C-alpha cells in the first residue's frame, strides 16, 4: 500500500483523494482523522497531518472547529478535472512509449482499446 520513493504525506493525501473520486467518501462527509489515518497506515501522525493540511490548502477538505475535517463541496468535481488533465501524462505517455517499443501503431492501439472497452465493464461518468 505504501509505495517506496514517494513522499509519504503525498501518498496519504492521494489515498484520501482516491476515496473521494471513487465516491466512497462523499461530499460533506467526515474525512478520517489524522490519528485514524496514522494508525491505519502505521505512520507518524505528523506525516498524516501534513497530508491532511495539504488537502485543506488545496480546498479538498475543510475544517469544522471542534469536530474535524470534512470533504468540501465540489471537491470531487475539481479532483476529476485535475486527474483528467493529468491522465495524459500519467497514463497515455507511458502507454505510447511502451506501444512504440512493441511496434504497435496508433491504429493498433485504437483497435485494442475498442475491443478491451467492449469486454470490460467500465464505470460510466456520474
Amino acid at each position, binding site marked *: 500500500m505504501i509505495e517506496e520513493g514517494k*513522499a509519504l504525506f503525498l501518498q496519504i493525501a492521494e489515498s484520501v483523494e482516491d476515496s473521494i473520486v471513487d465516491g466512497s467518501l462523499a461530499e460533506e462527509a467526515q474525512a478520517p482523522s489524522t490519528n485514524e489515518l496514522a494508525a491505519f497506515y502505521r505512520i*507518524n501522525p505528523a506525516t498524516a497531518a501534513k497530508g491532511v493540511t495539504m488537502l485543506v490548502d488545496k480546498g479538498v477538505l475543510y475544517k469544522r472547529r471542534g469536530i474535524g475535517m470534512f470533504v468540501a463541496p465540489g471537491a470531487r468535481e475539481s479532483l476529476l478535472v485535475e486527474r483528467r488533465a493529468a491522465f495524459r501524462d500519467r497514463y497515455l505517455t*507511458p502507454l505510447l512509449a511502451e506501444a512504440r517499443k512493441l511496434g504497435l501503431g496508433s491504429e493498433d492501439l485504437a483497435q485494442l482499446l475498442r475491443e478491451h472497452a467492449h469486454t470490460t465493464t467500465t464505470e460510466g461518468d456520474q
Partner: protein
Amino acid sequence: MTINDVAPPSGAAESVIEVRNLTKRYRDAVAVDDVSFSIHKNTIYGLLGRNGAGKTTVMSILTAQNFATSGDVRVFGEHPYENARVLRRMCFVRESQKYPDDAKPIHAFATAKLFFPNWNQELADRLIADFRLPVRTRIKKLSRGQLSAVGVIIGLASRAEVTFFDEPYLGLDAVARQIFYDRLLEDYTEHPRTVILSSHLIDEVSNLIERVLVIDRGQIIMDAATDDVRDQATAIVGDAAAVDAFVAGREVLHRESLGRVASVTIAGALSPDERSRLTAAGLDIGPVSLQQLIVRTTQHADDTDATASDTRTTTKGGRR
C-alpha cells in the same frame, strides 16, 4: 541539486536539545567530529548510521552518561551533567543495558516507577503482556529478545519528555518489533513526546520517523524531514547506454549493471519535462527506499573520500 540541499528546519519549531560543535575524541580516534544539530520538541527522530558511526556516543553525551571533549550541549536549555532537574525528564535505554545482579524485570520496573515522574504502570503491564515477558525470571537468565523487551518497556512506559532508544529492539523478532512500533506510535499520538530512535533497520522505521539524522564517521551528513529526504534520489533503469546519456551532468550516487541493463541512482528528483524525456528514451524510474537512499549517500561519501571510481558493477539486481 545535491543530497544536502534540503531546506533547514523552520525556526518556529521549539527545540528541546541544542548541540553546538560537539566533539568526542579518544586517544586514537575521533568518535564525534564537530557536530551541530537541534532536536525539536514532540518529534520522532531517526538517528541513523552504520556501526561505529557515533550514534551511541552522541546519545550518551546528551544524557550525561559520557562526556564531550569539546562543544556545547543543552537539554531544556541547561547542561545535563549531574543535573537532576533535566535528567529526570529524559530516558536513555541502551542496547545491552546492565541491570543489578540477580534483579528481575519486576524490580527494574518498580525502580523505574520511582524515578520517572510520568511512569505509567498500566502501559507497562500492557506491554509486559504484549511481549510475553516473564517478570519473575532473573534478568540474567532472559533471552536476548526478552532482555530487549525490558529496555523497550522502560523506555515506553517512562513517558519521559525526551526518550532515546538505542537499538534496544535488537533481538526482538519481527512480530515483537512491529508491536514496539505500533505501541510507540499509539502512545506518541496520545501523549506526544520527543523520541530519538537509532536503528540499522531504516526501512522498518521510515514510516515512524518525522525527521532523519544521519551520522557517518562522527559527522552529521543529513538532517532533514523524512518526506523531504524521500525525494532526494531517483533510480533510472534501462539500457546502459541510454541511462548514462540521460544522467549526464547529474550527481550519480550509485550505479549497478546487469548485462546491458543499468540502474543508476541520481541525486534529486525529475522535473515533469525530464520525466517525459525519460519515457521517450524508453527508460524506467525505479523507487528508492529511504534505506537505499541513506545507504547510497553513505557509500557515496565513502567513495568520494577514497577517490575511487563511482562506477560499480555487481551481479545482483539493485533493488531490495
